[in-house]
């Protein structure tokens, strides 16, 4: 499901990306990655591995210490306004305006994303597609659960219709059913030709849909596997091998696995 598009130019590219924070923490160390149209790249890593830092650099929220991040060939940190036309973003905790309804929020953010041609029915279609109940369309966001907010977030990303999508742990904190639905949606978007960079610490979900999985540990991309390479791999071993730091924080791998599967 991946290889035919690989010859195209990458839509997302991190080139020698290094970030050292003011306090001396090296969050990224010479990161290299590319995401082509029709690909999902899963950045796998524990807390503090540098996933959010990577995405923040793509969105120009922070400047890299060295190296570049390109979106559709545009340097995200030297021409952020141009670069951001080509990317949609869903954070791990989508936050919208609590006083606005779902519709109003979607309308605002989509138009901010440069799409003003939509009608209400288009918004409705997108919200239906992400699985938001119709009764919620005109409810104020302050009454929404986290899952409902994530759905609005992905709906906004879908409507923005940018060639690249950045997802920062989009399923963390969702119940398994919601997480599964979300993953299916991301897969659909990939099939539509989007280039998707998704950070997650959920290896099972990553394995399920990703074309590439990169394991990030303390800012270093320690392993890179294609979906095919992941097929026969023992998941527990992979954890032990590459995410030792993360395990110490989270606890027993088995407990985690039981939790997720």
């Amino acid at each position, binding site marked *: 499901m991946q290889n035919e598009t690989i010859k195209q130019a990458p839509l997302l590219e991190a080139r020698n990306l290094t970030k050292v924070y003011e306090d001396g923490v090296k969050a990224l160390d010479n990161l290299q990655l590319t995401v082509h149209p029709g690909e999902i790249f899963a950045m796998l890593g524990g807390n503090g591995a540098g996933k959010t830092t990577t995405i*923040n650099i793509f*969105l*120009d*929220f*922070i400047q890299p210490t060295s190296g570049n991040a390109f979106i559709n060939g545009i340097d995200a940190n030297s021409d*952020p*306004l*141009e670069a*951001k*036309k080509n*990317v*949609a*973003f869903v*954070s791990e*905790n*989508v*936050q*919208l*305006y*609590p*006083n*606005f309804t779902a519709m*109003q929020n979607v309308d*605002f*953010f989509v*138009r*901010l*994303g*440069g799409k*003003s041609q939509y009608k209400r029915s288009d918004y409705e279609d997108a919200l239906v597609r992400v699985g938001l109940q119709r009764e919620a369309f005109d409810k104020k966001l302050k009454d929404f659960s986290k899952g409902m907010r994530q759905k609005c*977030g992905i709906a*906004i990303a879908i409507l*923005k219709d940018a060639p690249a999508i*950045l997802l920062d742990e989009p399923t963390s904190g969702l119940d398994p059913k919601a997480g599964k639905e979300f993953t299916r949606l991301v897969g659909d978007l990939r099939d539509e030709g989007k280039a998707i960079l998704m950070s997650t610490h959920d290896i099972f979900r990553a394995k399920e849909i990703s074309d590439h999985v990169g394991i990030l540990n303390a800012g270093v991309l320690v392993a890179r596997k294609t979906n095919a390479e992941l097929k026969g791999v023992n998941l527990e071993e992979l954890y032990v091998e590459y995410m030792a730091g993360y395990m110490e924080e989270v606890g027993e791998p088995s407990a985690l696995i039981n939790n997720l599967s």
Partner: protein
Amino acid sequence: MLSILIQKELKNILLSPKFFATFLVCSILILISIFIGINEYNNSVLQYQTNQQIAQQDIEQATGWMQVRNLLHREPTPMQIFVSGLHFDVGRVSGISSFDDVKLVRSPYSDETLFAIFRFIDFAFIVQVVLSLFAILFTYDAINGERENGTLKLAFSNPVSRVQYLFSKFAGTWLGLIIPLLIPIMIGLLLVIVFGVPVSESDWIRIIGLIGLSILYVTFFIGIGLFISSVTRKSSLSFLLLLVIWISGVLILPRMGVMAAGQIVDIESVAQIEAKQEAFERERWESYSASLSEIWGEREQEMEGMTEEERRAYRDEKEWEWLEVDDAARKQVQSDIIENNRTLLEESQNRKKVQEQLAFNLARISPVSSFRLAAMNLAGTDIDMKSRYEESMRQYKDEFTKFTERKQAESGNSGGFRIEVDSNEGVKLDFGRNDQTLDTSDMPRYSAPVVQAGTSFGNSILDFGLLIVFIIATFGGSFFAFLRYDMR
């Protein structure tokens, strides 16, 4: 892009409970204040007219031109409805006669002390205190609140420029505050028209200036709110900081400026000045009587060796000459005293002016002082109102006393009175006049000092300018801070 952002800001504000509260509070306060202001104005006009009539009657019924005393009243102005300024604190009436010093006494507050306790609420007060507070409530979390909510990140994952974003924050909040300011004041002005308050063309210009000034003032507070919100990460911190800024700017600094000026420039109290005047007076009269006895000694010497007969003849011959000499000396003393009183008063007034200017300039650290001073200047209820009135009343007094002296001379009546003690009728006072009233038809009329609207604007130009400078500074600061703001 900009219009999308502004629309959203405006929508967000219009939908928020704080907008509703602001609108409600502003409408109620502004309308009530104008309504009460109109009533208060009408009352003071009525009182003014009655007092003028009484004063007129009193003159007509005076015993003679020498006893005539006019009472001049400060004329109410429709502008006091919006900016009462010092209207309630400055006296309303001064006696005008050769034996009265011009001095406005009996201020509205001294007559109705109850209202002095909490003072009247006028439009300027509402803007100064209430709207500035609302401006802070609208802006304290404008930037850092969106960061805390996470909406800032989502918004800036789109091709949004920071300058446009901040500008839309400003524009949205600005409209959200100006609407609750303008709608009630428009209705209020309608009330003013409906109630028939005689607002002159110049007053309308002043009112427009006042509204413009209020908008500038509110804009400043939006600016400072945006600035603090974009140099802090947490809205709880920015709220606290802004509250401190508001309290010091609105309540503390203006007073501190005035108090400091009071400490720096010493002003003699009225009692001190009077003591000086009295000392001078005593000293002059003493030296006068000393010189008088000296003169008389000389005169005695001149007559030395004369017989009693000769002396009498000499005295009779010299009587008028001597009398004139003595009288001239006495008049000299009197005019010296008047001159001295005048200089002392002038000196103290000049020092007062110096103190006043220093006080204002110190207070102007806070733009709130600029707003207040400019508002009072525009309305004509400023600190100079008192001196303006007293100045014009002094001029009138000169005219008036000249007039009464002339009348006195024409009527050829000494102005004195005779007391007769009659065993049947008891004590009888005879003022030597028939029961005719005095003819006041050609008495000089007093007209209140007129300040052109242009002059008022001229007087407030410094404060307008300062407000604009403060606004530019806060906006410059906000943009500078927001361009470097960490969105995460």
